[in-house]
């Protein structure tokens, strides 16, 4: 379930289109309805010796998968942490971080996602009022290391201190969409009442000053 959801989010980010909830719902509906019809037809026709409990169990498995998928999808779309990331992407960055500001403006002009650059700035403490927690910083470095392969996200910021996972002085590179996508999934929710408390680690915190 988790991996299926992650793969879909990655594909969505790579393809560049963001399907609506209606489309995701239809995707599951169009697989559940044929499954039910085929199972019903097979049992009623006597073509196979499948019993009704088996059919009911198979439909239940599909239902659990679909409902869980839709739930994760809707939570990730409206998650609290994702809204913080969006707000960080629009927040003013410290004037001293000129390279970061330039990169963000360039990405905004070209219509690219700003989540990755916003998290980069938040991790460096350049976004007033928003910081990454220790768990969020660890997660950020992990996914950034995978996505960038040791390359720097921002031209001009290529010190080894920025890249604890490599000793190479890197060339410039744009943060890929996958980074923001994966991280967006991991930080999406922190509501303590939810049954998803397992995934509700506090990756991002707001400073109340």
């Amino acid at each position, binding site marked *: 379930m988790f991996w299926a959801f992650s793969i879909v989010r990655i594909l969505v980010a790579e393809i560049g289109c963001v399907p609506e909830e209606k489309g995701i719902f239809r995707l599951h509906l169009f697989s559940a309805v044929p499954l039910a019809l085929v199972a019903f037809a097979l049992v009623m026709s006597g073509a196979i010796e499948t*019993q009704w*409990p*088996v059919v*009911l*169990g198979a439909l*239940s*498995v599909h*239902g*659990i998968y679909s*409902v*869980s998928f*839709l*739930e994760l999808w*809707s*939570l990730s779309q*409206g998650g609290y942490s994702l809204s913080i990331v969006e707000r960080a992407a629009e927040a003013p960055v410290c004037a001293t971080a000129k390279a970061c500001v330039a990169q963000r403006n360039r990405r905004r002009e070209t219509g690219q996602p700003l989540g990755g650059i916003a998290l980069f700035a938040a991790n460096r403490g350049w976004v007033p009022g928003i910081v990454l927690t220790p768990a969020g910083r660890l997660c950020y470095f992990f996914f950034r290391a995978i996505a960038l392969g040791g390359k720097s996200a921002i031209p001009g910021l290529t010190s080894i201190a920025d890249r604890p996972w490599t000793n190479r002085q890197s060339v410039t590179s744009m943060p890929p969409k996958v980074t923001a996508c994966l991280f967006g999934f991991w930080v999406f929710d922190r*509501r303590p*009442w*939810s*049954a*998803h*408390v397992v995934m509700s680690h506090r990756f991002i915190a707001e400073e109340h000053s």
Partner: protein
Amino acid sequence: MKFVLAGGTGGLSLGLHAFLRHQADAEVASGLLVYALACEFYVFLFSMVSSSIRSLFF
């Protein structure tokens, strides 16, 4: 958290009762899967409603 406790207790009770009556067969597995689907659907609806109310206030 309360639902996890209540739902888990109910699931264990159902599984125990079904196992004692039918041993481990397709009907027991099917019943537990239907129960799990009902629990998941409840959590889904609960999350949606809570999110909607939350969005009104914040």
